[in-house]
């Protein structure tokens, strides 16, 4: 078989694979349709160039394969053709870049009404914190983290007391409500990524990073860690449930606030102290016995 034909089949196969592939992106569940559209645009432009270049190559290979009595054309360059190609390429690239930059501008500009969610990552798990009635999250410090303060909230920050704590890797979101994901990590890099929402950003220890999206499809989604974070990386999962406003309000009212949590912990501590006392008592008795 002529090599040109095989190369042609490769191009054709690529095209057919693209058309008939069962592996394609998941149904989008957020406002970032623009990203999908830009990808589609890039596919049309880029795919067109790929096919055009490869078919031209195949044509050349078939048409101009070696003949002993023929001479190749002698033409060191063609300024005009090169100019045309440069301009055309520049236009194509600009056409791809423009929507990219516009949507990126939306991506980094968070709408005013977005709900802030503190996503805290560690090796290997997630937990979440929502603002309470004041609508603001309290500041945090990693050094504050202990059993009584699992999020490391600064105790002297008045905004922190009513924060809603969700000590689970599952979180619920309200549909059509923009959320600003504030990512932080206590140890290494992580990345809170839901394929259906398209958006992602690394959680970096030492700073707080953010991105935003607006979930618009009710359902359950899986959270994946998308930045390598050690041996447990592949198993670092979480979940998101997008709910209607009523269901969401119902759910949020059942969650405990930092204030509740402190009160509960104090109770537990009291209980623990009692238990420890008892234990010590028993222990002492046993030691007595042994002696």
């Amino acid at each position, binding site marked *: 078989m002529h090599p040109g034909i095989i190369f042609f089949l490769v191009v054709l196969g690529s095209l057919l694979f693209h058309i008939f592939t069962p592996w394609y992106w998941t149904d989008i569940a957020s406002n970032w349709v623009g990203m999908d559209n830009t990808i589609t645009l890039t596919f049309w432009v880029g795919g067109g160039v790929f096919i055009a270049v490869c078919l031209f190559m195949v044509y050349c290979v078939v048409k101009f394969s070696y003949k002993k009595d*023929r001479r190749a054309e002698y033409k*060191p360059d063609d300024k005009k053709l090169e100019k045309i190609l440069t301009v055309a390429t520049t236009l194509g690239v600009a056409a791809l870049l423009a929507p990219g930059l516009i949507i990126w501008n939306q991506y*980094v500009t968070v709408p005013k009404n977005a709900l802030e969610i503190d996503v805290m990552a560690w090796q290997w798990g997630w937990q979440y914190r929502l603002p309470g009635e004041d609508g603001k999250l309290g500041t945090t410090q990693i050094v504050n983290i202990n059993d009584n303060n699992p999020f490391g909230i600064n105790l002297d920050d008045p905004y922190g007391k009513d924060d809603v704590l969700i000590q689970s890797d599952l979180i619920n979101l309200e549909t059509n409500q923009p959320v600003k994901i504030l990512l932080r990590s206590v140890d290494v890099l992580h990345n809170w990524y839901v394929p259906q929402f398209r958006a992602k*950003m690394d959680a970096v220890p030492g700073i707080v990073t953010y991105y935003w999206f607006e979930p618009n499809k009710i359902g359950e989604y899986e959270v994946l860690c998308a930045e390598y974070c050690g*041996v447990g990386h592949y198993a670092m999962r979480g979940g998101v449930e997008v709910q209607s406003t009523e269901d969401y309000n119902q759910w949020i009212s059942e969650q405990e606030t930092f204030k509740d949590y402190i009160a509960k912990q104090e109770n537990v501590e009291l209980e623990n102290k009692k238990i420890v006392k008892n234990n010590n008592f028993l222990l002492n008795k046993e030691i007595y016995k042994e002696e």
Partner: protein
Amino acid sequence: MSDEYENKTGYQAQSSETISSGGGGGSGTVPDADHVRPAEIPEQDLYHGHSFITKWIFCQDAKVIGVQYFLLATFTGIIGLILSWLMRLQLGFPEAAGFMTAEHYYQFVTMHGMIMVVYFLTALFLGGFGNYLIPLMVGSRDMVFPYLNMVSFWSFFVAVGVLLASFFVPGGPTGAGWTLYPPQAILEGTPGSGMGILLMCISLILFVAGFTMGGLNYLITILQARTRGMTLMRMPLTVWGIFTATILAMLAFPALLVGGLMMTLDNVLGTSFFMPTILKAGEVLEYGGGSPILFQHLFWFFGHPEVYIVALPAFGIVSDLISVHARKNIFGYRMMVWAIVGIGGLSFFVWAHHMYVSGMNPWFGFFFATTTLIIAIPTAMKVYNWILTLWRGNIRLNVVMLWCLGFIVTFVNGGITGLFLGNVTVDVPLSDTYFVIAHFHMVMGIAPLMVIMGAVYHWFPLVAGRFLDEKLGKWHFWLTFLGAYSIYFPMHYLGFIGVPRRYFEMYDSPYVTSAVGMNEFISVAAFIVGAAQLILIYNIIRTLKIGKPAGHNPWQANSLEWLTPSVPPEHGNWGEKLPVVHRWPYDFSVPGAKEDFITQTTPPSEVAETEVEKT
């Protein structure tokens, strides 16, 4: 010691006019048209080895050093290949890979990446092809600092030794991913966070030191030791590619060196360059205030030029191969040179497109997306010029040309997906997924590999004096090309469904279940492609014994490396007198010429009746 140096006399600044017709017939008087400026650099003294050790091991001949680099890089590359097999076994057939833990998997991923990018591709292109071809192509006797060149190889040797030693230390090699991002690289929870990462950093620092010595050689040889008549704009594009890549390496490796050094200090001394306050297993570690993103900036300030360090020599070499085997001049030579230089220059202003979702200052996205897509323009020009070189050529469809065609297909494919990832918005859903893996394997794994293979088939007759077998070569090409394409083309679609990279296993997510079949397919293809490389090894061994002798200039090429008095060229390359260059290396199929090529040393008076446009 001084008697070991030989000054090949007979070619001094004063006595130049009588022999300036170089490769052509020296009839005594030289026509005006053939006049070339007399020599301005004195003849180089060379150290000639006497014993086996100084001739073949601690050798100062750039050609031997080139082969040494080539062999060691290939050896390391084969280790990288085996590691990739193990990874594919785990991903495709996890039940058959029961011996592999997640730790092993991540260690293999890391070592595979680092080996292939730095110790295989960089060393092979610059150390291997660079050493062998630069002096031959620019017409010098050797590299300008042969001793330094030898030390360069041996530092690379030690670097590889240290790298491989990390397989045998407690904790094993580092499993931090080839990007070595802190904090995880030096924290428990990542395999090899103690000795492994330390040895990796040491090995990289040795590599950089060794490479700097080699790189100085390549640059000064090209800038200051060309032969008479060899202007920069008469150099083959191979030399241009290697030259620009070396400049990039000289300026980019410092960032890696600094990053590696600072991480080593974080690891060993407990400094906090990259380490913020960290809570690990309920305890706050003794770090604080550092910035992990700084490492990423340093790493990619090196890492992006590194991509072009691998790609530019490939661009250059493939241009030469296409031109020779299409019997046609490379289309738009000037444009090709400026594209190489432009890509090289721009590559220092695009690094953070690897970091769109890293949490850096979000406004950087605008800057880096723009600069990144600007790079697409010169790159696209190069692609156009390659295929326009084929247009109305007289294409020999031999193995070398097949590899070039394979390069064009894979490179265009990978370049197009680069438009996806460089454009900041499109990168957001696709980054850190298999799309990225497919993209960079296609564009800087398979595409440069195609060029390496083409170059091996092309220059083997020069190095060994015998042709590699065509039939075996065709089997080798089709298995490799079709296999590799079917590994990486479908892999993009895994990225579309959102499978993150660096997952040890991926079968418990409902939406990726359908990836099982594809993973098995990719793994099988990977095994076949890897095994197909045995054909090349067999071919080389067979050829060395019974291959068809090549003789002088077997491909009817123009460039200087084929015009040495002896094949393979000896130490000193040119025998009695250096060649004199009269034209660019692409005068193929000139109308009116006797044959379809005019070598670079042919003086104008000999081809006066032809219609040569360029000189």
